[in-house]
């Protein structure tokens, strides 16, 4: 962080490198940190279970919007029956993983960054090192792994709630037959489509958790520094999520 004299491009490259090195450090300590599963459990709870309400609520509304918009579009072609397909593919392949990751960055990523940053600002991390306790192993690795595990699960739940949100609009409100809604969806969605969404959410989980713990661990140890780091977490992870989303969509697209 304290690059000081580096020019902007060099500083950018150095930052990317620093994140990579940090990821290597975390990965090397993950087997050791699994020796104390209660740390990991607490972090899955923090990152996952406590984000559940906001993720499910957003899923419901996104599904309802997809139901309305899909119905509006498909109605013009006389194929409103296919609205289930539009909702399912939209959720599974794009909106489920992406919106969940953005919410995750705002809800869980910020709390990870500010927690670790505050530990640093109050010299808790230094104190750990004094006692020969590795802070990466005990503080960073469980938080990283917790977020990494939680995000794909949250994205799956987001998609399912969204499917029912779409049904709420399309079937209950717009009068699409519920059998047609689900059976057209089941006939059009392939395992590929589901796995594309799952891979995306895994990649987003890695990116969001890594950015959050990196920013926290390398925050300037002041109140202002923690605030800046938290803001940066949201900005960097959001941009990164959208960038990775494009890359993965392109990768899955050319394969077909």
């Amino acid at each position: 962080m304290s690059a000081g004299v580096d020019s902007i491009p060099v500083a950018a490259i150095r930052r990317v490198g620093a994140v990579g090195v940090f990821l290597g450090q975390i990965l090397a300590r993950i087997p050791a940190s699994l020796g104390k599963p209660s740390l990991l459990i607490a972090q899955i709870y923090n990152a996952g279970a406590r984000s559940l309400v906001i993720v499910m609520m957003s899923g419901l509304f996104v599904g309802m919007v997809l139901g309305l918009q899909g119905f509006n579009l498909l109605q013009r072609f006389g194929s409103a029956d296919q609205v289930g397909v539009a909702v399912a593919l939209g959720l599974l392949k794009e909106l489920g993983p992406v919106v969940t990751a953005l919410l995750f960055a705002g809800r869980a990523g910020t709390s990870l960054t500010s927690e670790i940053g505050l530990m640093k600002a109050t010299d808790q991390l230094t104190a750990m090192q004094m006692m020969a306790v590795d802070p990466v192993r005990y503080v960073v690795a469980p938080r990283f792994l917790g977020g990494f595990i939680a995000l794909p699960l949250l994205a799956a739940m987001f998609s399912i709630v969204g499917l029912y949100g779409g049904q709420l609009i399309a079937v209950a409100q717009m009068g699409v037959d519920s059998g047609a809604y689900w059976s057209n969806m089941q006939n059009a969605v392939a395992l590929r489509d589901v796995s594309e969404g799952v891979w995306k959410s895994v990649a987003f989980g890695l990116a969001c958790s890594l950015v959050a713990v990196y920013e926290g661990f390398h925050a300037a140890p002041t109140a202002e520094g923690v605030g800046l780091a938290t803001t940066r977490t949201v900005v960097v992870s959001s941009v990164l999520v959208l960038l990775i989303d494009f890359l993965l969509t392109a990768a899955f697209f050319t394969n077909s």
Partner: protein
Amino acid sequence: MQSNRSLEIGTGLFVLLGFAALAFLTTQLPGSSLRIKGGDSGYKVLAAFDNIGDLKEGSPVTLAGVRIGRVEGIAIDSRTFKADVTLRIDRQYSEIPDDSDASIQTAGLLGGKYIGLTPGGSETFLKDGGQIELTQSALVLENLINKLFANIASKGPDQQNGQAAAPTPAPAVVDKEKK
């Protein structure tokens, strides 16, 4: 200790729920053999069709345009090479004449297929496991276009040997195509 316990239960619930969601997405949405069939209320009726087009399990069954049930199963009869379609009709519509006629229809030009029932005049009603004898296959658009072209080709120069394979539906198709 107590807070630790509730935290572990919460995490466990979250992880189980997450994996249940993943399992639902991977097995119930794609055409998988693990798919759970819906509950069975109502009664079953069988109908054999020559060609069902792209009728699917779950497609609606209607009477006078009102949905009265859905397609529960589609199988092929290995002797007659017809499609055996199982319809599940809601119990409240129990008085459908047993000489009713089932035809496969399309919702809109691009819409999905559904089965439309036209009631007959019989005094006896369809029962659970009963069979609809009068069926009409799906209109396959490609076949209609083929017939139309065959018709035009044969009618072209000499009028007398055009035996008019399907004179009535053909103009309807042309109309639809122009839209």
